[in-house]
């Protein structure tokens, strides 16, 4: 550049540096809780006209249909518009919140997230949740305040930072047409996999279904769920995890494709099961099985596998990001979603089949009869059967530690 224009060059440099500076300038979140409410009437008044974006896992057609066709019209009566934003992983929603907080946005686009477990804990660490608002919800009166599943979420105290939505039970599923003698404990499941090479696999953690399977195996190789302390400690991890990874590494050659690769998520495992490439699948949402069998996606022999050592159960919640620009509307949605009518509607097998978080014994007779009258699914047993011998989730700190250990010990062996 011989005939340089020093001024315009400097100007151009300054102009291009500005956006950079602007981005670097707005570091860690500066958001504070918007309008904390004391009265429900005030919430109802503010909610009128608000549009609530509910970010939730979008891979479940029944869940999508329930929110669009049943929940959205119900909240519309309060003047609230409910928009469902499908994500492939709840982390995507949480990441959106973090990114907006990082950028200093107080008018966040995420108003509600279907969340639990390590995502909830991470959000709490980053102060991304609005807290102390669930006591305001009139529907909370129908829940059991002493229910351990609602008091803490994977060991993280809920503290009114999320409203309960439904309960889930981790469930193994097999094809009764191809598995003549189904195993009855987790240890037998692993033995069965070794005796039937190529007919079993599990999603690769950090996928949440694969992750919970690894925790179930941890409980099994440790001599039972009671032998694994719920609170994470490096000492407990160092003591218990070698047996887990030894077992899974030993199992790998007997898995689908010789453990050379794993399905990336529950949907891919379900595809293998539907195609008859494996004889077992697993899910945190057994409610979806009814429809999958009815429409012929899954084989007619699809049967829930009850394990004597029980499986893990948890509750999932609706979290309200601290920078939501429609927090009143979001509270109304959470309250309606927790009402008896919505919980009953959602529990119907042909709607979504999700297990209620309400305390059924504490309901009045009329409401209780609604739950008693629910039709049974031909595939999925009722919650009290599914949750027999169930155990609670380990604390959320266990999850990333076990997932990362699985990557280094089992996946890249």
């Amino acid at each position: 550049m011989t005939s340089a224009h020093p001024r315009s060059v400097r100007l151009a440099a300054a102009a291009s540096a500005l956006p950079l500076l602007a981005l670097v300038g707005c570091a860690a979140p500066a958001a504070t809780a918007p309008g904390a409410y004391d009265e429900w009437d005030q919430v109802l008044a503010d909610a009128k006209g608000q549009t609530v974006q509910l970010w939730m896992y979008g891979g479940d057609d029944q869940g999508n249909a329930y929110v669009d066709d049943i929940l959205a019209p119900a909240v519309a009566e309060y003047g609230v518009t409910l928009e469902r934003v499908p994500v492939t992983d709840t982390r995507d929603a949480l990441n959106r919140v973090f990114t907006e907080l990082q950028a200093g946005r107080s008018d966040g686009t995420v108003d509600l997230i279907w969340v639990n477990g390590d995502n909830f804990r991470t959000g709490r660490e980053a102060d991304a949740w609005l807290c102390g608002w669930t006591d305001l919800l009139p529907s909370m009166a129908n829940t059991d305040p002493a229910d351990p599943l609602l008091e803490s979420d994977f060991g993280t105290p809920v503290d009114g930072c999320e409203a309960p939505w439904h309960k889930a039970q981790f469930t193994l599923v097999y094809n009764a047409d191809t598995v003549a003698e189904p195993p009855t404990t987790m240890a037998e499941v692993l033995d069965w996999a070794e005796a039937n090479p190529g007919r079993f696999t599990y999603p690769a953690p950090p996928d949440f279904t694969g992750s919970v399977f690894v925790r179930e195996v941890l409980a099994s190789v440790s001599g039972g769920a009671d032998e694994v302390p719920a609170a994470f400690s490096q000492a407990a991890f160092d003591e218990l995890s070698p047996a887990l990874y030894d077992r899974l590494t030993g199992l790998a050659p007997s898995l689908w494709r010789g453990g050379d690769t794993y399905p990336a998520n529950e949907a891919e495992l379900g595809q293998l099961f539907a195609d008859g490439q494996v004889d077992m699948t697993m899910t945190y949402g057994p409610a979806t099985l009814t429809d999958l069998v009815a429409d012929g996606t899954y084989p007619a022999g699809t049967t829930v596998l009850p394990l004597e050592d029980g499986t893990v159960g948890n509750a999932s919640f609706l979290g309200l990001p601290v920078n939501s620009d429609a927090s009143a509307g979001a509270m109304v949605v959470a309250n309606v979603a927790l009402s008896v009518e919505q919980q009953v509607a959602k529990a119907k097998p042909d709607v979504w089949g999700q297990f209620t978080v309400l305390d059924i014994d504490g309901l009045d007779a009329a409401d209780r009869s609604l739950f008693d009258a629910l039709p049974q699914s031909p595939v999925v047993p009722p919650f009290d059967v599914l949750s027999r011998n169930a155990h609670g989730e380990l604390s959320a700190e266990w999850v990333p530690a076990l997932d990362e250990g699985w990557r280094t010990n089992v996946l890249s062996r």
Partner: protein
Amino acid sequence: MSFAPVPRRAGTGAARRRGALMVLPAVTVTAIVVLGGLGATLAQAFGLLPIIGPARPGIGAFTAHPDDLASAVGVSLGIAATSTAIAVTVGTAAAIVIVSGRLGGRIVAGLGAVTVTIPHLIGAATIGLLLADAGVLPRLLGIPPESWPAFVGGPWWAAVIAEFAWKESAFVALVVTGTLATRVSAFDETAALLGAGRWKRFRHVLLPLTLPSIIIAGAIGFVYALGSYEVAWLLGRTYPEPLPVLAVRLFQGVSLDSRPEAAAVAIVTSVIALATVALTFAALRRTAAWR
């Protein structure tokens, strides 16, 4: 598209300044996106932009998972190089068929134009449905899943490479066709009249004149394959991961401390892409047609 040297356009200083002003809006928008995005990524990678806690500057994010990063670089380079090599070969051959002007050429041109408009995500899903163990192809052929080669999620990344090669070859074909349809065809005819055979014309006329477009199209395809997430995620295997898949997994990691590591992987990807572009320009300078 012509690569003949263009004489410097005469003009007053005012005209040049007006020209600069005209491109300023486009340059500004590009600068905000590229510099802002890269700047934010750099700041995160070097620990200057934490989600929680104080900033801790350092290069820890680059050295946190050296094995994962090294294997990701290897896998990504392998996929991008293989698919680009196939795409350049197929695309150049297709371009020559297209400019032949026969019916076959028109069919190939139509196929190429349609292929370019299909989004990579749709392409990946299609290849997956076609080539998976229990996909359309093995079902049509009556081959059971266990006997079908592991194209999807297999050790050779066959489905991923096939998708990139298919999409990019159409892109290369269209770019090269554009070059061949210009004065190159006149040179080709002249050479034919002078008695040059097909191979000689290809070797001494077509290839040298189209080489710059081939190099540019190949470089664009290479850089795209290097940074593309969805194809590798849908059709690839869980380990080892290509760079973009590794970056997204780390970015989505629930322990917030892995975000700088994701940014570091993205920076490494960008550096490789920029180096590719630099090499491309170096190669272009050496081609006869560019000079």
